[in-house]
């Protein structure tokens, strides 16, 4: 015999103050908060008045973008520093001024996309933007980000598992941050199962769907997964009926172009 506590009333856990998640920001690996990504356009070469640190930032961003693109095409193992600098249009000397080696650069690219994902999640939870379904907003914002940056999506969801232990650690630290988001605030939603387990089930299912889309070269259409991912994230906590209902709402909104 198992005993049911009365089910918590349906309410939007995502709007709770505890879910504004101050602890989440900046907690992932060595990620620090950053503003939006710097422009990666190539700056003029030769003599110019552009400040030195702007030049360095632009070079760094171009190298990271190139790393994401080249690994998405060839995989991490087959990627060489030579390919990356050729794609970035910088010299090897510049590369080694900014990074120790291929792995150092690769890990910096992973941190870059995790930092951007963190920013996006933080914005979706922003107390200034109280919306009916913040969870939906979080998932949608992440999908839009990954659709806009297919090479970085590949880097995060495929290459991190197919490269080095340190990259896997970074990925898992990002995943743990998502788990804490999914798991916090749900303690009274399901009495029999720990929120940690429910969150792992939710995240694992969502990752599998996202990974499959990216592996098939469909990163650009990731936002279409929103209704399914919302279902996946909700069902272990709120049950099938509510998960389906909110998934259908998200679907209708997507169809309406909202």
């Amino acid at each position: 015999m198992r005993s049911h506590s009365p089910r918590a009333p349906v309410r939007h856990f995502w709007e709770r103050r505890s879910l504004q998640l101050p602890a989440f920001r900046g907690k992932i690996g060595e990620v620090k908060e950053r503003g939006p990504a710097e422009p990666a356009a190539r700056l003029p070469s030769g003599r110019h008045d552009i400040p030195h640190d702007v030049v360095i930032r632009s070079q760094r961003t171009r190298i990271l973008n190139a790393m994401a693109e080249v690994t998405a095409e060839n995989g991490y193992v087959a990627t060489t520093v030579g390919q990356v600098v050729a794609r970035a249009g910088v010299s090897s000397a510049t590369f080694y001024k900014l990074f120790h080696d291929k792995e150092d650069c690769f890990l910096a690219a992973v941190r870059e996309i995790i930092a951007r994902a963190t920013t996006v999640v933080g914005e979706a939870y922003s107390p200034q933007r109280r919306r009916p379904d913040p969870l939906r907003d979080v998932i949608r914002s992440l999908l839009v980000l990954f659709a806009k940056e297919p090479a970085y999506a590949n880097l995060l969801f495929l290459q991190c598992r197919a490269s080095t232990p340190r990259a896997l650690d970074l990925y898992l630290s990002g995943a743990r941050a998502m788990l804490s988001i999914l798991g916090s605030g749900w303690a009274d939603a399901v009495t029999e199962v720990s929120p940690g387990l429910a969150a792992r089930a939710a995240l694992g299912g969502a990752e599998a769907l996202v990974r499959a889309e990216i592996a098939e070269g469909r990163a650009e259409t990731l936002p279409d997964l929103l209704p399914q991912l919302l279902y996946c994230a909700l069902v272990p906590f709120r049950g099938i009926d509510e998960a389906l209902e909110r998934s259908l709402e998200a679907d209708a909104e997507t169809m309406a172009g909202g």
Partner: protein
Amino acid sequence: MESGIRERTPGLPRDIDGLSQRDRLLWSTVRVVAEKGYDGFTLGDIVARAGVSRTTFYDEFANKDECLFAAYDLVVDVLISFVTEAYRGDGPWPERVGAGLRALLEALAAEPEVAKMAAVEFPAAGPAAHQRYRDALERFLPFFAEGRKYASRSAELPPNVELMAVGGAEVIIFDEVVAGRVSRLPQMLPEILFAALVPFLGPDAAATEMQRLAPSAS
């Protein structure tokens, strides 16, 4: 099937004497890679262990990689066959999923090095190897096709609900393997079953199935 012990702990073959040359090479590859790591083994290691000549090796495989991929597929074939065997029967679908998962987890726990190779090291070798890992995961989807019929609102479930189930279970298994806790996997059967069933059954029914497998839970 001869004894209860055999039935509960299916394993990968260790004695390869009676096998074909090709299978001897493949199982030797599995063992050598599990022992020496994906980067550390040589063709000489494989043929020595299999007791065949290099010429025979090249009759069967174009190169080391081809042999490695074939060995990987063989391990997956065997794991799938254990799961299929355990899943068979007339019992309720959630119980058969539990039986299939138990067979998988026990097979992995009995071979920690092979489990690590199959789930972590081989997929990290590059995009083709990682694709092979995802292909292997897809081979578990048919076990969940029946879940749609079993679910109460089957017609409305999301199109990829089977992949959610496989992904939910996989992430727990993967984390345990990465953390070096392969031998504990059978103890985690209830949690992994919950993750696999919840997209079809919802949390209450999935938790009931989970508790059925956790004898000490009060």
